[in-house]
């Protein structure tokens, strides 16, 4: 069963339960009934966890920010090595480029943002209670795009993109799921 329990946490849990049961059997530790029940339940649960269809998270790759042009929001287009076996470079490139373009659009110092600022000043910033800022609108667009990419490209390959706004626009987190269907070892 060890090779099935790839998740370290689960394995640890399993070990704990196993040792608990061994203690019980050997009588080295006095157990309360509740503890025993809990331990066995956990044991059972750990076992059943592996039967769940949810694939385990193999690892996470972080695409860092590209600060070469300053503090504008831009992500590195360098293809992470861990994704080489899962994804085409062009697809990844395209995703990151699109994200970069969207963020550039969000942060653009254009007439629209200036007008928005003036309007906010004039209304003593009460306009923010009613209106959505330009950046927020683009963020929604980005969230839709990421969801779309996940559905079409990444999820079928066992990957999942996390919206960088959830990480404070510091990284794009790509979660790699375990591929148990083929024993490819990765």
């Amino acid at each position, binding site marked *: 069963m060890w090779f099935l329990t790839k998740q370290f946490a689960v394995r640890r849990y399993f070990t704990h339960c196993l040792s608990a049961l061994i203690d019980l059997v050997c009588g080295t530790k006095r157990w309360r009934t509740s503890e025993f029940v809990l331990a066995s339940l956990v044991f059972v649960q750990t076992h059943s966890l592996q039967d769940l269809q949810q694939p385990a998270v193999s690892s996470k790759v972080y695409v860092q920010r590209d600060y070469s042009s300053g503090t504008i929001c831009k992500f590195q287009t360098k293809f992470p090595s861990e994704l080489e076996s899962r994804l085409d470079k062009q697809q990844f490139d395209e995703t990151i480029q699109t994200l970069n373009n969207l963020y550039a659009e969000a942060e653009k110092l254009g007439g629209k943002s200036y007008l928005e600022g003036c309007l906010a000043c004039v209304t003593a910033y009460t306009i923010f209670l009613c209106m959505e800022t330009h950046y927020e609108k683009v963020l929604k667009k980005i969230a839709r795009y990421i969801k779309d990419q996940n559905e079409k490209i990444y999820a*079928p390959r066992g990957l999942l993109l996390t919206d960088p706004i959830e990480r404070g626009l510091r990284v794009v987190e790509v979660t790699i799921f375990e591929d*148990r269907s083929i024993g490819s070892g990765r």
Partner: protein
Amino acid sequence: MPGFSGGVIGGGVGGPASAPPRPFRPSRYVPVSAATTFLVGATTLFFCFTCPWLSESISSVVPFYIAVIFLFTLANFCMATFMDPGIFPRGKTEGDTDDFRAPLYKTVEIRGIQVRMKWCSTCRFYRPPRCSHCSVCDNCVEDFDHHCPWVNNCIGRRNYRYFFLFLLSLTTHIMNIFGFGLVYVLHHRHQLDTPHAAVTMAVMCVAGLFFVPVAGLTGFHIVLVARGRTTNEQVTGKFRGGVNPFTKGCLRNISHVLCSPQAPRYLGRWRGHEALEVQPPFLRPSLTEAQLEAKVLDNGIHNDRHSTRSKISLDQMESQSADIEPPPPPKPDFRYPGLPRADTEESSLLTNAPPTPSMYKYRPAYSSPGRNHATPPHPIKVQSMIRGESLDSPSPSILQSSRQPSYRSEPSSLDGATVVGGGVGVHRGERGEGPGGPGGTAGVVSGVSGYSLTRRSYTSYPSSLVLSIGGSRSSSQRSAQTVHNPLATLQSEGTTDTSYKSLANQTPRNGSLSYDSLLTPSESPEFESAAHELSPQNSPLQGYTSPFLSAQIAQQREGQLLQGSTTFSSPHRAYLRAVSPPTPSSPEAQHLLQHKQDVISRNTRNLSSLSSSPGAHPLEPPVSPPPRGLSLSKSPSYTGEAGPQHKPRPAGGVYMFEVNHLTSISLSPLSPSPNGCPTRSTSRPVLANHSTPKPGGGVKKVTGVGGTTYEISV
């Protein structure tokens, strides 16, 4: 106003409070309450007592105008107080051991200037540039300016505009109050005993009292905005000796502050995403023909990925080597029997065509002399690549840089490096070029150290240079793109997969960067002998940073080093764990690289700036007191608030290019420079960066900001 330092009063107020789950510190609210009281109270009194007469005698526009300014002030005050300044959500890490594994600093290049990002242990990520951790709020804030006690909030990216406008409008408002109050008093100077006059005079006094510090602060921030700096950067003296990478010119800086779109908040966002089901079977990218061929030839021992990459390059090399050159003399690896054949792999790989596609791109024409030796290619090759990966970087960039015209003027140590691609290990000296690119093997290094470069006698360089190059080249399979990625792709948020336990100032004794040497310390005596030529305590990588190394190359190298070192960790973690000895040393290597890069870039920047300033004298800068003790004379409370936050990070505020600790921050230069906005500080680095190496070599001690001392080998 200076007496309102919250701490003084807070000591009495907060003392007797019991210990609730979240410590409630009423002292924090004293300054903001006082500010609100004064602002609203004084203005209200003014409106009640002075304005009726003003509207009658002058015009009714006057109270209207004052009211508008007052409302604007109040609105900005509320926004500055209640708006999230740009707090970063805490980073997620897997396991708490990761904290120990994170190197303290990560270097990134911003517009050609090396900037260090520090690991925030509270927030668990590397602080983005311009981000700082506020000790009062216990949060990392984006574009951190300062923590303002008068609004009881941090001023950061999102609310800096409102804070700035608040200062401007408050100054205007105070001037209005004082001015119109003066008009009233002058007009009623014979009736000063009336309550109206008395109140007006009292309000005038309050206004006059607050005017001096507020106007001073406003002027200070006007200069900061024009220069594109934050208060934190100004007070910690980050750009005192150097160039501000964040400035875009005066007008653009102003428009960025005032007209940029409102930045989003990171906390408290509505997460509306539904969980996406990710189910196997998963698609795989289709293999190219070359990869398929590689798979066929693969002995299937190891991972597809590695075999694919390595095999492609090997194939290419083999096809070339047969035609181009005869096999080289055997490698001197007999000296180090302890090292596995991987070393020959590395050396052979290093000597010619790159073993990886990325390297191959740059030096396609050369053969691999060592190819004949490396007959069981894959497992060993993979191992060597894995091991050498920690030093992945300089070579592709170096190779690439060799193609750049500006590189031609580089000294031969780098030429030697560039010819690494063409040369064949230690025995290519006859080509008239520098040392070849042997692998990270000690043996090779020792052989190389015997070489003298043709043009200049940097004998100390080749060994370490070759070391790093060797290690890096063998592992450069990761660096498909080389030049423009100085920022290493950390496999985790900064820590998770980086299996290096590194502390801030560790330096391996042997000064070697090769992973092989770290693996097999028995071989290190060779390195030590080479390293001694440089300096006893500094890494050879420092010494090998030639004084003439261009910033570009250094940065490329650093970037590649970082890349390699970090990409090294994650995929091969399993491998690392199996080999216990490397683990303690690899974090050192990692941090060593970091440290070296720091020093390299520092050296580079200093030297490049120095070369432009004939008047600079290469002496140690005088050690002066920390900058935070010297900040704004005009607003002491401001200093007080800025000070405690910066204290915990004495060295954190140092930017790469600024090694010298300069004298006090003088406020007078803050008056706008004659040209308008180009910073005066640009003239500073010419004189200031004088941590030059002496031509005779040795170790130079330089004092950085905050009193930290650096030893730089020259």
